[in-house]
């Protein structure tokens, strides 16, 4: 078969454009994502801005209650539930609950699209694990039931993702208000992904129905092997996908991890500043920062601190 022949060539030949491109672009993805995540982590403590229901409120989450409902709440032990947070996040990730409840027209396209992406991610992870296992001499991709299972998996994943992507694109283009409220980036992302999916289908149909080229490529990539050539169509797919991933951290698609911050660190951050908690030092440091807001009632000159301005009365 065409594909298996190329796998052998790939493993033994010089490093290809695809390999170099893939390494560079994946590095871009990883470093870009890390940069963005670290940026959020390093942002200073903010004032509380929680929004109920808060998923970890034990026994009260069903109606959105909080510890403020308890008389002398500060004297009582605060009971939180990690399970509550995990459950809410899982419900959101696997059923797109908020979209289903508030935007039903977009729910099915969005659900198909996201499930397609989840399955494609798992396929990529399986190829990666297979490559690692093979490299360690443990076991190849046999544990997945062979190429036919991978092939079916790929079809289902690509099918869902492509269908979802097309439906989302149609909605954005066909609904005048949604089209009007979209940014150029919203269209770029969908068209770009559609192009990646189109190449993936072409590869699946013409080159790599059982993902043997892909498996060999991943294996070579893990060993940073140089060599040979792979079909041009496969190279195009790898580079287009790689470029998309490298771009992703600079787009709103980082919501896949930013949700941790938007939900856990903002929406559900209801931890009270009671004795023993570590806010004092942080707050003191922040209150000593210089203020340069220029309005007459502040007149921040870049030297006065927050502590200074909040103790003034200000001019009208």
């Amino acid at each position: 078969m065409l594909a298996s022949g190329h796998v052998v060539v790939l493993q033994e030949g010089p490093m290809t454009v695809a390999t170099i491109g893939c390494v560079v672009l994946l590095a871009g993805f990883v470093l870009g994502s890390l940069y963005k995540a670290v940026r959020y982590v390093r942002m200073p403590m903010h004032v509380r801005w929680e929004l109920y229901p808060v998923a970890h409120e034990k026994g009260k989450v069903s109606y959105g209650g909080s510890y403020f409902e308890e008389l002398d709440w500060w004297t009582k032990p605060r009971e939180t539930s990690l399970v509550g947070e995990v459950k809410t996040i899982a419900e959101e990730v696997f059923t797109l609950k908020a979209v289903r409840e508030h935007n039903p027209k977009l729910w099915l396209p969005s659900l198909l699209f996201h499930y397609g992406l989840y399955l494609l991610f798992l396929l990529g992870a399986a190829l990666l694990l297979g490559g690692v296992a093979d490299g360690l001499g443990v076991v190849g991709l046999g544990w997945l039931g062979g190429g036919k299972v991978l092939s079916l998996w790929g079809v289902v994943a690509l099918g869902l993702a492509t269908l979802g992507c097309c439906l989302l694109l149609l909605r954005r283009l066909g609904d005048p208000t949604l089209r009007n409220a979209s940014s150029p980036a919203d269209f770029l992302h969908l068209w770009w992904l559609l192009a990646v999916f189109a190449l993936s289908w072409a590869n699946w149909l013409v080159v790599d129905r059982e993902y043997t080229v892909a498996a060999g490529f991943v294996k070579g990539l893990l060993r940073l092997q140089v060599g040979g050539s792979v079909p041009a169509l496969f190279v195009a797919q790898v580079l287009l996908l790689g470029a998309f991933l490298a771009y992703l951290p600079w787009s709103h698609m980082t919501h896949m991890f930013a949700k941790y911050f938007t939900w856990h660190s903002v929406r559900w951050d209801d931890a009270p500043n009671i004795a023993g908690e570590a806010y004092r030092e942080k707050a003191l440091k922040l209150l000593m920062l210089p203020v340069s807001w220029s309005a007459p009632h502040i007149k921040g000159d870049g030297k006065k601190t927050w502590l200074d301005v909040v103790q003034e009365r200000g001019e009208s």
Partner: protein
Amino acid sequence: MKPEPLVPPVKVRDIAKPTPALSPLDLQKIVPLPPPYDQIDPQTLWKELTAERRQEIDASLDGVSALSLKRPEDPQEEERLLKGFVEGLRKLLSVENNWTFLQPLQLTLDHCTHCQTCADACPIFVMSGRNEIYRPTYRADVLRRLVARYGNGGNPIKSALTGPIELNWETLARLAELSYRCTLCRRCAQACPIGVDNGLVTHELRKLFSQELGIAATECHANGSMLQLRVGSSTGMTPAVVRDNIEFIDEEMSEKVGFTVKTPFDKVGADVLLLHNAGEILAWPENPGAFAVILEAAGISWTMSSDLVAYDAINYGLWYDDVQFARVALEHIKVAKKLKVKKIVIGECGHAHKALTVIADRLLLGEDNIPRESALTFLEGIVNSGVLKLDPSRNDFPVTLHDPCNIVRAMGIVEPQRRILRRIAPRFREMTPHGVENYCCGGGSGFAIMSPNNFANWRMLVSGRIKMQQILEAFKDELDPAIPKYLCTPCSNCKGQFRDLLRAYGAWERSRILYGGLVELVVNAMADVPPGFLEWEFH
């Protein structure tokens, strides 16, 4: 019938177009109310600004003006304002100047997918007949585009991906106005699957305008927090006037309830410092009066303060200015410390709840961190203690409950007020939706105190309309004016909005709907008090 001509929806970049009005309110599209209120022609509640007034002020957003902004007198003035705005953008995104909200803001700016899942959660957008400029993402996208193009020197690639926008006087003036077309109810944030908070954008925009350019609603700033810091209260009441008024209220209450009611002032070592929205003292004296009756009857050790700022729980900075917010919060705490109280109880005022209990929390260090409690929780404690003899038959009329956003969605205090009502109001019924999914009264984020130009008309027709619909639905089988009905609203600002809203729609005359707080209902049910504490008079 001729089909309606297709009007292209207003685009984000249109905000810079020099047109007389970007997207005027279309009275034909306002969502109708249930019968018989569907007969009220929106035109009768509307006021068009005169041509003269429109020459004086900028109403080019939607034909409404909340800020009475005047056009710059010359190009230099315009240039100064635009430069100031760009400078404000930089500060809004800097740790030094905006550590208070930087992380939530940056996350919100970075992650909106424009899926419009938030759109239908916004009552202003929906009730206006889906006016594009009220869409929660509209104002947020204006900010996103401005940040991409002008923020920190600008980023051409990011700007191209975010979309085109121009910064000129029209953009600046309309964006300032647009930041006062959202009540900060945060239903949009609640609906967002990603956790983006387009309501926060409103808050941050108001902050930029206030803290950098000195542009803010007069009622919130000059006549609000500045006045409070200067004379003690945004009502203008001095300590002597507050004492006088409370003394008068005490006398009235004593007469009504048949035992002596005396509000203690400045009592060092009291268990509780009670902070009222001072507006209650002037507009709804029965509310602080009812509090005094309950605390007296329950034998609570409590006090009010006559110190400047501390006899008024309001903190308007919460809506538009972090510096003003912190100044007022610190004054409240200073007095509590001076009086050595065990806790501060915040009366029936929603934004005061959130300001002092939640937003100020991490700024109150060491001894300043005096426990703060909601009056609703505190009241439930008193009711549960059994110290008051309650007779629910005294409240045998239809009652529904409004959930103030700041107490419920922003603090999770949902059940205490309901448990009290279930105990004292046998004909209590919920609105739909309610609890943390409630709709704002339409007067949130300062709107209730704002009525310049035709803004009050907009409040009645747009921001308050969904609540009017909810109230009518809650009482739908008993709208007959022969049946008195009570809209329980434990928040002073919401009450201000309901006073205007029920009056505008004639709901007192047409349906005998009265509004009031929770404590009044409790006192009305007290068996030891002569019947008829509630006076069925609309004011």
